[in-house]
């Protein structure tokens, strides 16, 4: 039972980060019908912005502000930085290609992905960056927490999981309960009709990139608080986020959340109960299974076209 609880906590931690990344993919796809393959690298940039902010605030060994404020400021810095990056990417890499055939922005997205990864490497080198959160408050974030049976759920995991869910709730509120969210949904449903109804499509798209990229920034910090980062982390994280979005149904916000969690649990339980060696094979087999038997994903809508 302890193993099950521990693996569930592992899966929930992983899954909540995957879900945040998946939301970025799904938001952009929902509005633009574009697979933003640069999203994983925006996530990577987020991990670096967070690291930079952490250093500005004295690092984990000697922070200049209380720990809670440090974590909040680092997260907000990464979210803000990534949001700006998202706007720049949209303006220069995707907007000029908005009316081009769908393959053109896809290739542009891949180009942006390589551009970001290589630029970061040129600017900051290939050395891994470790937030070293273990040094914060004498390891309290790792060693203190809530006990479930004989399993301790450390503070850092509780913070990661609860922050991710809080962000998902905020996103749900933004999309479903605000005028801008309504505009996003209208644009997603029919861009031309939305424009004819007076919705500023450019503004909606920019806002979508801000939201998606900010979530990637937050996910980046949540990831890097526990695991060292480097300029290559965006590829795998992006791949897992994309897989989660597809499993959940790309374009569906609740689907992306569900997909992320399913992927996290699948990874943790496979490693725990089946085989550590074959976990990636199992996880990506789920993706293949969905592509074959339910290509629209768990909560996505089948794309029906009139001919």
């Amino acid at each position, binding site marked *: 039972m302890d193993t099950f609880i521990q*693996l569930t906590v*592992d899966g929930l931690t992983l899954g909540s980060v995957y879900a945040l990344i998946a939301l970025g993919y799904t938001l952009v796809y929902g509005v633009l019908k574009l697979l933003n393959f640069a999203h994983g690298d925006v996530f990577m940039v987020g991990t670096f912005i967070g690291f930079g902010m952490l250093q500005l605030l004295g690092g984990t060994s000697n922070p200049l502000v209380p720990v809670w404020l440090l974590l909040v400021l680092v997260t907000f810095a990464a979210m803000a930085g990534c949001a700006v990056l998202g706007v720049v990417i949209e303006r220069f890499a995707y907007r000029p290609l908005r009316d081009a055939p769908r393959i053109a922005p896809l290739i542009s997205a891949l180009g942006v992905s390589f551009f970001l990864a290589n630029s970061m490497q040129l600017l900051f080198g290939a*050395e891994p960056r*470790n937030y070293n959160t273990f040094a914060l408050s004498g390891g309290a974030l*790792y060693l203190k927490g809530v006990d479930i049976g004989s399993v301790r759920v450390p503070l850092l995991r509780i913070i990661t999981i609860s922050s991710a869910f809080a962000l998902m709730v905020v996103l749900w509120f933004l999309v479903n309960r605000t005028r801008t969210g309504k505009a996003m949904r209208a644009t997603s449903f029919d861009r031309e009709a939305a424009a004819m109804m007076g919705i500023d499509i450019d503004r909606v798209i920019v806002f979508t990139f801000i939201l998606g990229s900010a979530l990637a920034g937050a996910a980046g910090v949540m990831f890097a608080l526990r695991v*060292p980062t*480097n300029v290559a982390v965006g590829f795998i994280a992006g791949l897992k986020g994309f897989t989660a979005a597809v499993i959940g149904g790309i374009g569906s916000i609740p689907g992306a959340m569900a997909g992320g969690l399913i992927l996290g649990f699948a990874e*943790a339980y496979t490693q*725990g109960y089946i085989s550590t060696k074959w*976990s990636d094979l199992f996880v990506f087999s789920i993706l293949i299974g969905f592509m074959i038997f339910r290509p629209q994903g768990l909560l996505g809508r089948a794309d029906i076209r009139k001919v």
Partner: protein
Amino acid sequence: MKRAIVLAVVIVVAAGATAAALAKPSATGSASAAQAVSCKSTLTIPFVTPLTGGAGFIGTEQATWAKYAVKTLPSHYGLKIKLVFGDTPVEQGPAPALALAQKYIADKSVVAILGPSTSGNAGASTKVYTQAGLVQLSPSATHTELTIGTPAVPYIGTPGFFRNVPGDYIQGPTDARFMINKLHVKKVVIIDFQEPYSVGLADIVESTLKKAGVSVTRLSAPNTTTDYSAYVTKVPNDADVVFFPTQKPPDIQTFGQQLLEQGKKAKLFGGDGSNDPAHFTIAGSYVSNFAPDITSIPADAAIVAGWQKDNPGKVVGSFGPPSYGAVQILLEAIKKACIQGHGSIQQRHDVIRNMKKVRIPNFILGGTFRFSTKTNDPLNAKFYIFQIQSNGKYKLVG
């Protein structure tokens, strides 16, 4: 019908020619190797090593020492050497190393290869280099089968591949014996990283421990893994040691933090690939390495001081010094080939022929350097065990 037969013959001949061309990737290299190269000209030594990616710390440290060696040593040998770097990120597998091999083989000024630094790339490219007559001297590829065969895995090296550090057939038993004799282990968890270096070393440690009656649990992680929580969950509470040979020290650091997070008491033990005081700092953990701390060797004082002057603020690690030594060995062999060739290297293969004649007293890693007569490994080399102290320093303990 006649046209069809002619067409079929043309296709067969074309396919045969293509296959022949592909089967002999060194054809261009062999042709260029046949041309003599003057020892008065600038000779090129490419260093094939990961400068970027998760193992980038290995290449960047090695690069500083190789640069320092090329800056200070060639004049003693009357040679002019140009050092160039070929980046081989471990995440990209052997493809970059193979592409670089073709490039260097085609370059007439290339007379020797420093590296490849990683075992996977060394194994993948050695046949191509050796067919072209180019010697390869790795300062860090420790995979056993690169220089000797074992009952389980056949020899995958070539006569042109050398290394100046001992192989995992020495590292594995050294690590395992330390665990048995000094740490008195009863239960050990071994995790490999699904790449040649890691799997090979894990296999040797596992077999040595099992022979001594130690209970071993074997796990395996894809080398793209970032979060080890589920692996840590599988570590029994009463495990004494987790042996995790990886070439990415931040990964073993993460593993260690997650062990503490889950309240597991097992000590971490890494191979030479984890020997990085900047990134692996879990106090009480162990790492092995092929090089001692050269700052404790009096004969190296001037070299260390010179390197530190060129690299202010950097700490002397374990991966760099063997690269300095490797440059020195190559220069010796090149010089001998130049003398035999009366001022020129008649064939690239002449450098290979002179490798085993190299003797270097007061070698940077201590003692006199020479290759074994039986293998292309250094004679009498050994591995060292370090323990990480609470201040993050590595202390030699075995």
